[in-house]
């Protein structure tokens, strides 16, 4: 029937007087062979037998368990009007939970079906508290439900699977039973698998015997799969009723998500406040101070140091404009608008505004999250301000590059160095604030500033936070 090609095979047959040719691919053949092999080998592997063993053991356990739980439950309900009945009912639910635990560990060790433990039983204090907790224990009640479903299901499974095995054996030995053999039954049904002339139990015909043996073979091969079907339904039942309460798990997930969101928004508010406090407010105070000084100088009765006044007003003027700009930034999305076009543009703007000539190099494949961009920007701004104020540098350089999932910001200058995270006499103050901000997103800040310079500040930030 089959062709001889090495790879794809052609199947030819006569159907209804016509020649039909089918091409079967190599893979299809291999798959078919595998399926046949599995079917033939399966009864002789370990798996159906462990499944059967599990079925027997867990079924027995469930049967006894249901008997106990059922009896206590009936007794509990019957006596519910008394305190004793309530206690019995609570005990019943607690035992069901225990049985559920045993069944879970049986499934784990025998079937390698590992079901997560449900929420542990937490009793309120006192005996009454214990009673209340036990009666409200969802896990316990779900275990009761499991037992109630499991026992009939197990009985049905026993009946079907055992019948198949039994029938298989009976069918297979049928030809050898001699003329006294009764017609093999099917699922225990009296009339048997093959009717043979009413009640006439004559010696079986040859074809009849072959058909019965074939049937026996099919039963034998099918039995493990039927068994597996029953076990698989049991697995589903166990996962649904003995595992963690899906509702409770969902509540937990949501609680976590909510607390993260709350934390994040609290952190955002804190950051805004910090931005306002360190930036605009400080700038406005400094501005008011300069104007105050200028005002006093102008009020002096003797000669007025006009150059100094002009200088003060100039500084105040600049400060006012910066404060306005910063305030606008904060109001508009709490991050510098320049960041809308990306770090490169924002840092270039920053460098252009810096008092010390500053070069910029940005090399990022992916855009960091807005929070990281903002921190990078504010770090650069503060570091450049430090350079301008303390370093006596003639040049500064900002580089911002991606290293894996991290962003590395390096700000270096050729100034006098000696910057510290906390210094006596001089200052570097803002650095500590920056460190705090960087830590908030699990980043790192490293300062190298030997006396005499140069100063190199390296900030590593995760690309997303």
């Amino acid at each position, binding site marked *: 029937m089959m062709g001889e090609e090495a790879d794809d095979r052609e199947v030819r047959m006569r159907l209804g007087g016509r020649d039909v040719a089918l091409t079967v691919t190599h893979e299809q053949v291999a798959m078919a062979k595998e399926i046949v092999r599995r079917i033939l080998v399966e009864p002789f592997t370990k798996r159906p037998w462990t499944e059967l063993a599990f079925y027997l053991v867990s079924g027995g356990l469930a049967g006894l368990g249901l008997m106990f739980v059922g009896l206590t439950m009936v007794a509990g309900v019957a006596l519910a009007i008394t305190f004793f009945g309530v206690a019995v009912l609570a005990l019943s639910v607690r035992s069901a939970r225990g049985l559920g635990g045993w069944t879970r560990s049986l499934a784990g060790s025998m079937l390698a079906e590992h079901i997560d433990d449900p929420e542990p039983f937490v009793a309120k204090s006192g005996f009454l508290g214990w009673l209340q907790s036990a009666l409200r224990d969802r896990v316990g009640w779900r275990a009761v439900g499991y037992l109630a479903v499991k026992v009939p299901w197990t009985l049905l499974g026993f009946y079907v699977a055992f019948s198949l095995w039994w029938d298989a054996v009976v069918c297979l030995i049928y030809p050898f039973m001699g003329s006294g053999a009764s017609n093999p039954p099917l699922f225990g049904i009296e009339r048997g698998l093959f009717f043979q002339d009413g009640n006439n139990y004559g010696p079986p015909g040859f074809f009849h015997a072959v058909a019965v043996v074939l049937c026996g073979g099919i039963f034998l091969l099918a039995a493990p799969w039927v068994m597996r079907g029953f076990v698989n339904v049991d697995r589903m039942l166990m996962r649904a009723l003995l595992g963690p309460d899906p509702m409770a798990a969902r509540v937990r997930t949501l609680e976590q998500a909510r607390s993260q969101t709350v934390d994040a928004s609290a952190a955002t508010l804190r950051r805004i406040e910090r931005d306002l406090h*360190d930036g605009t407010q400080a700038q406005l*105070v400094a501005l008011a101070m300069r104007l105050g*000084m200028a005002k*006093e100088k102008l009020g002096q009765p003797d000669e007025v140091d006009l150059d100094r006044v002009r200088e003060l007003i100039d500084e105040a003027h600049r400060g006012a404009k910066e404060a306005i700009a910063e305030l606008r930034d904060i109001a508009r999305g709490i991050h510098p608008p320049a960041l809308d076009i990306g770090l490169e543009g924002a840092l270039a703007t920053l460098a252009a505004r810096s008092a010390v000539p500053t070069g910029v190099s940005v090399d990022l494949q992916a855009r960091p999250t807005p929070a990281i961009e903002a921190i990078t920007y504010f770090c650069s701004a503060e570091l450049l301000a430090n350079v301008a104020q303390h370093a006596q540098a003639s040049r500064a350089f900002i580089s911002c590059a991606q290293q894996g999932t991290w962003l590395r910001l390096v700000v270096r200058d050729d100034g006098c160095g000696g910057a510290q995270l*906390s210094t*006596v*006499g001089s200052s570097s*103050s*803002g*650095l500590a604030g920056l460190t705090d901000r960087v830590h908030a997103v699990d980043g790192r800040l490293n300062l190298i500033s030997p006396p005499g310079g140069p100063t190199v500040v390296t900030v590593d930030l995760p690309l997303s936070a």
Partner: protein
Amino acid sequence: MVEALRVAIAEDSAILRDGLVQLLVDRGFVITGAVGDPSALRSSVAQFQPDVAVIDIRMPPTFTDEGLRLALELRDRYEGLGILLFSQYIETRYAADLLSDNAAGIGYLLKDRVADVSDFVEALERVAIGGTALDPEVVTQLMGATRQIDSLSVLTTREREVLGLMAEGRSNAAIANALVVSEGAVEKHVANIFAKLDLPVSDQDHRRVLAVLRFLES
């Protein structure tokens, strides 16, 4: 001023710190240290023994009340060191902590006050020589929160003004100056206030402050 007052500054905002240094140097003060965090101020004060320390309340590492704790610590360690707390917010609680047993050489001002340079410098000098300088905001908050409303209502408007200025730590002369009245008139108001509120009379300004604050807090 015979000798220039020596000032240490702890302020974590570079802009403000530099501005303060500029202002105080301009006014003839000697700056012994301008630092950005508590531990730096601690060592700076130990080394240079300034007359007065200007301390920002919110400083690294936690940016909460480092400055306040540092101020309490320094006040206990260095007798005669004036301490001016400097903040963008007024917390009456902080004022209470600070003035719990002694108001001598203590100041608590909003940062905004530097805009009025002379007032600020005057407050700083007062603190440096053992006086008290409380921000009007602190006094307003205390007067607003006090349960002594009934007692305060026996005071005239002018007397209440004098009470407020007294609580800020001002001397009779300064109060007279501020209200544009004679010092004698102020003395009369003060005597009336103490009599009406049944406060212990004291000739030292900072004790007077404490008495008034006790009254407002009670």
